[in-house]
Each structure stands twice: as structure tokens, then as C-alpha cells.
């Protein structure tokens, strides 16, 4: 579903993402983790066509993002790290708008909208302007919008920020359900518990480079951690050398 080759992004003298190669299969839940400033959000924004790579290519569902952007994007749902949505639209109108952009027929869009608003506990607020929503409600609205066209690939950047425990549980259940139905989920987060619980494979990015890739078991082996070690311990072991090196130690 996702094929990334030689992906690089440079900002003047800073290399935010450095020759990244990665592939994620259909139906897989992939966790993308790394320290702050590692290049996670930059990678995701390049995957969603929000910023242009300096080099490399991205294929989503077999479509090259550079030459077949619309076809590639039509497959995806996206939840950004900051849930900026039009403050002067109501939640229901925002979902209607996104459904329209993705070409969902009006009747199907209405049905899906009702279902998602109810699923994310937003029915009561659907006719209120988004400017009155809390951060968590905006996050849930963005999540609902990302699902309105039943995407084959869902890309999430820090989806748990601002969500209450109920919302977080709902999100986990939704992601699992999506993956079970054959959709691919690519999630970037600092919440290692979520990754441990949900993800089939995990990629660890440090200073723009993919430091480790594999299942939790494979990562434990790579880190030399004992069986049953938590992802947090594995993560710290795998990222520490690079972080120390970058600090000149």
C-alpha cells in the first residue's frame, strides 16, 4: 500500500528526512515512532502531498504521488497533528464538505456522516460551529472526516493528543476494526502503549533516518532486550546511540 524510496527533505543545511526507504503492506497497522524532531511529521506531510520532497518517491496504493496525486490521495484519510478545521463551519457541514471533496455521493455521505457523528459522540454538537469545540472534539471531528470516504489507507499524526480516555479507547477500536476490514493504518505517535497494543510492525526514525524496522519481537532482538520487554525500553535502547552521537558524546 505504501512504497517510499529514497525519500529526502532538506531545509537549507538541515536534513529533516534522509534517504528513507519503507514499505507498508495492505491491511497492516504500522507504527512510526521517533524522538522529537526526528522527521516523523515531515515524512507524513510528504506522504500526504503537503510538502514536496527534495528527492525520492512515494507510491500509495500503486499510484505515484508526484504524477498521480489525485488518485493516490483519493485512497487516503488523514489526521494531522494539529486539528485545524474551518472554525466557521459546523461539525456536520465540515463532514459534508470533506465527503464532497472525496466525491462521496450525497445520500451515502449523509448516511455515513450520521454514523460517524454518533460513533465519535458528536451528534449533539453537529450543528454548532467548530470554534465552540474543545481540542478533543476537534480531534474527533477530524477523525470522523478522515473516515467519511471509507479510505483504504489511514494516516494519523499524533492522534491521541488532546483525547480523553474514552476517545482514546474509541480510536484504538476504530483503527483495529479498520485494519481487520483490510485497510492500512500508518500511525505516528509518542504514545508507545498505542503502538505496542495495535501495530503489526514498527519503524523507528532518528534524525531523519530509519533506525530500526520490524515487529516488536524483531526490535527487541535488535536492541538486545529481554523477551517481553516493553517498547519504551526497546525504543530508548535503539535511539540512544544516535542521540548521544548527535550530541557529540
Amino acid at each position, binding site marked *: 500500500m505504501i512504497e517510499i524510496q529514497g525519500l529526502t527533505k532538506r531545509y537549507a543545511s538541515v536534513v529533516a528526512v534522509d534517504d528513507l526507504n519503507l514499505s507498508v503492506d495492505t491491511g497492516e497497522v504500522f507504527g512510526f515512532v521517533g524522538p522529537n524532531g526526528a522527521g516523523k511529521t515531515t515524512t507524513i*506531510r510528504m506522504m*500526504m*502531498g*503537503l*510538502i*514536496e520532497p527534495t528527492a525520492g518517491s512515494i507510491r500509495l496504493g500503486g499510484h505515484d504521488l508526484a504524477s498521480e*496525486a*489525485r*488518485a493516490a*490521495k*483519493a485512497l*487516503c484519510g*488523514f489526521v*494531522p497533528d*494539529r486539528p*485545524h*478545521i*474551518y*472554525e*466557521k*463551519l*459546523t461539525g456536520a*457541514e465540515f463532514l459534508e*464538505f*470533506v465527503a*464532497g*471533496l*472525496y*466525491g462521496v455521493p450525497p445520500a451515502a455521505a449523509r448516511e455515513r456522516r450520521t454514523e460517524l457523528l454518533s460513533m465519535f459522540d458528536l451528534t449533539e454538537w453537529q*450543528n*454548532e*460551529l467548530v*470554534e*465552540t469545540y474543545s481540542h478533543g472534539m476537534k480531534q474527533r471531528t477530524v477523525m470522523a*472526516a478522515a473516515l467519511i470516504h471509507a479510505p483504504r489507507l489511514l494516516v494519523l499524526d499524533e492522534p491521541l493528543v488532546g483525547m480523553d480516555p474514552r476517545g482514546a479507547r474509541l480510536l484504538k477500536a476504530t483503527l483495529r476494526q479498520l485494519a481487520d476490514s483490510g485497510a492500512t493504518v500508518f500511525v505516528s505517535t509518542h504514545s508507545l502503549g498505542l503502538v505496542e497494543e495495535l501495530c503489526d510492525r514498527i519503524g523507528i526514525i532518528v534524525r531523519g533516518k530509519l533506525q530500526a524496522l520490524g515487529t516488536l519481537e524483531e526490535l527487541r532482538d535488535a536492541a538486545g532486550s529481554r523477551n517481553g520487554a516493553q517498547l519504551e525500553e526497546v525504543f530508548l535502547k535503539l535511539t540512544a546511540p544516535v542521540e548521544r552521537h548527535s550530541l557529540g558524546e
Partner: protein
Amino acid sequence: MNLRRSVDDRATDESRTTGALRWLLYPRRRAFAYRLSDLWKNGRWQLAGIATLVALFSVGVFYLVHRTLAYFLGFPEFGSILTYKLLNMIFVVFFSILAFSNVVTALSTFYLSDDLDRIVAAPVPAHIFFYGRFVETVFESSWMIIMFAVPAFLAYGIAHTAGPDFYLVAALTLPPFVVIPAAIGVALTSILVNVFPARRTREVLVLLAIVAFALVYLVLRLLQPERLLHPETSASFAHFLNGLDTPSSMLLPTTWASEVLHRSLQGSLRTSVFYWLVLTSTAAAFAVLCELLTTRLYLSGWTKSQEGRKARFTQRPIWERFVTLITAPLGAQTRLLVIKELRTFFRDTSQWSQLVLLLALVVVYVYNFRVIPIGEGGLTTFYFRNVIAFFNLALAGLVIAAVAVRFVYPSISLEGRYMWITRSGPVDVSRVWWSKFWIALLPLVVLGQILALATNYYLDVLPMMSWLSSVTLLAITPGLVALGLAVGATYPHLGADSASKVAASAGGLIYMILCVAFIGVIVCLEAWPVYTFFMHRLYETPISTSARLGIATSLGSALALSVVVFVVSARTGIRRLYALEV
């Protein structure tokens, strides 16, 4: 790290840091400095271009004011009275614009800005907070006026062959002059935000718009511009002059500011200093009174301003039907984007309320032409009427540009933080551009045609002049809109939260200057054909074939230029929009 220790260190320094107004202004100053240093390092040509455009603009204002003053001073008996009157009019117009723009700016800087959460939560003393925001408000609302004022006052000095003391006096007059309307604007905003529940913000802004309307109308009536052209309606010429010589009111800051400069030009430095002291002490008093009022009312007003409200009108079926109807010819995605634009625009009180102000300005604009005497015995003639109509063409173009700098140029920036929605979806970026283009084009075309048709009706010009005005405005408006979107995508402020802030940025100035250049070239290209046509009409001689050819070439070039500006701007705008990293 010992966290307790660092907190204690900060506490001991608290009196030093919180007392410093400069920290509140620090983010703005740094942002400005970074922008300048970035331009200096990476865009010297761009910087040189901006400097050249600013210089050209200043020279233009200087030339216009200097020519007018030189003409007035050509009448030794009453030239000085006319230049004083003009000075007074300039100050009255500046004051009215500043009073309204300060209300709009203060709403943003004091009550709606994104950084208020952090600043209000910080241990900043109320008066320091007030002056920090007040200085920001003054800068944001006044810098464009100062850009006009500097070359205008320079022209005054040179036309009157004034000594260096005049320039010093002029430079010292502007700061207290801009502080007074700022204090009035901020105080008015603080009262309105408190008096009206935030859920009725819309009504508050309607009131503001009506106040602005009344203010503009009042200014117009106070100035009585028609008197300048109607001396014969006064009992005698002496009475007319006497009327001109009477200052509006000795209690108005505009009169004091005019007196400061006027007396300095006349060599009465002591009187000039007296009026400056009156102006400055009033400004200081107003600032202090505004501080007392605002700090007292602030917390309750800010609390109310954070409450949300319902979108009533734009959720009604009649509105939905209207929007569906007018967007029916558009493609599905463009239609969605246009509907979104309409909804967000008409639910944003800081945006739509300015339409009411715009309506007021149009009424005043047309009214000006209504009061110009055109009958028998007036100062105007057939030639004069049509010359005015020709210059009105340029003015109407500038009015469209002025509206576009407030509504069209910021539209890309205002989309910035939401652009991920369309950019991550299967939407061609050009559709976003076209949706913004269409939504701006239609009202601006209507505005242009109203300005052209109504004013030409009152001027009673030749049908040819009327047609020329309408067609020219119709031809240049797409170019002006596309240019606004192109400059908006070239100099974006993607995190911006207010259109007025974006409009007041350097990009807004570049856009205005480009518009002036574009309209200027169009007017130059049309000047000769219009002149030739009128001369032949006036002397009732037939137009030769070569003259016809020349007219066609000139008018054709104007049309071609309009098309080129539109096409180049549209291409640049779409390309820049594609390249924007969001």
C-alpha cells in the same frame, strides 16, 4: 537540573522582567527582524524591489500633493487658506480612517489574537499588558497612514520653502496624532465587547459598521467638499473664503494638528509649539484614560469574547437555497469550495461587517459626484465633466484594488492553517484558486460597475465615456483579483488569524503598488484616445483614419495588458499555490 532553584531565580528577577514592556513586543520585533534579515540574506532583489516600489509610491504621493499646493499657492490672496484647508481635510480623513481601523485592530490585538492565552496567563501587570497591546494596535493601524503622511508633509514643506523646524514639527506631530484615535478605538472596543454578550458579536459589529458609516457621512458633511467648487452659492466670494478660513472646531485634535503644521509654516513657532503641547497632552491623557478603562473592563470582555455563538442566518433553508442556486453552474468540487468560502465569510463578523463599511464608502463616493455642479453656471464644462469621468475611471480601479487588498489578497493566507484539508485530498490545487477567484470577482465586478455607472450618470458624460469606463473596469477587475491572489500566494502569512493583519503586511503594500502601476498604465494607454475623441467632438471635426487606427491600437493595448496581467497572475498564483508547503 534543580527545577526549584531555577523557578526561584526567575522569581527574583520578576520585577525586572515583568516591568519591561519590551518583552511583550519582543515576538513582533523578532519576527520583523527575522523577516528583514531573511530578505537581506536570501532576497536582496526582492528587498530592492520593495524599496523601489515604496520609493515610487512616495514620489507619487509627493508629486500629487506638491502639484496641488503649487496650484493653490498660485493665488496669492487665498492660496495659504486653501493649503490650510487641504491640510485640515487630510487630518480629518486620517483621523476618521484611524478611528475605525483602530476599533477593528483592537478587537484582534486585545480580544481575538492567538497568543492572548499565554500572555494573559503570565504574571504581566495589567498596565504593561495594556501598553504592549496598545503599541501593537497603533503600529498595525497607523503605518499605512504614516506612509501617506510622510511624502505629503514633505510636499507641504517644500511647497512652502519651509525651514528644518517644520520637518521636525511634522515628525513630532504624527505620534500624538495617531495615539488619540487609537485610544478612542481601543476604549470603544473594550466597552462594546463588555456591553454586548459575545453571542451577539455580530450585532456589535453591525453597530460598529453603522457608527463608521455615520462617521464617514459626518466627515463628509463637515468637509463640505462641494463648497470648493461652489463659491457662487455663497453670498459673496469673501464670505466663501471666510467660510473656508474658519477651522472646523478648536476642540478637535485634527484642528490642533493642522494648526501645529500651519503655524510652523507661517513662522509662528511659539503658537505651533502651543498646539503641539495641546495635542500631545491630550494624547497622553487619552492613553491613560483608555488604560484605566481597558484594564478595568478587560477580563470580563476577554472572557465573553471566548464564548462561541450559533450560525443562525447561514443555516436557514433560504440561505441554503440561495447558495445552491448561485453555485449551480460550477463543477462539484469548485462548488463545494465556493459554498465553504461563503459560509465562512458570512459567519466571520470581522469579515462581512466590513461590507457594510464598504457600502458606506460607495455611497459617499457616489455622493461626491452628485454634488459636483454640472449645470449651467457651474464651474464645469463639457470638457471638465468628461475629464473627471476619465480620472474617475482610475479612482474606481483604485477603490476595487483597495477592497481587494482587504478581501482578496489575505484569502490565501487565511486558508493557510486549513490548507491540509484540500491538499491532502484528491483536489486539484487550481480549483482552490478558481474558487477564490470567482467568489471575489463577481462582487468586485458589481462594485466597479456601480461606481462607473452611478458616477457617470451624475456627471452626465458622453455615452462613449460611460461605455469606456464600464468596459475598462470590467477588463481590469479579473487582473486585479488574480494579481491579489498571486501576491497573496507569493507572500503568504499561513498562520495568520486576521485578514486586516495580512492586508497591512508588506505583501499588501506590494499588491497595492502593483495595482497602482497596472491602473496607471491602463489610464495612460487610454488617455490619448480619449483626448483625441473629445477634441474631435469639441471642434466637431471627423476623426481621420490614422487617428482611428491609433485609438484602436491604444485601446487594444489596454485590453491586451489586462489579459496579460490576468493570465500571468493566474499562472503565477496557481504555481505558487502548488509550491506552498503547508
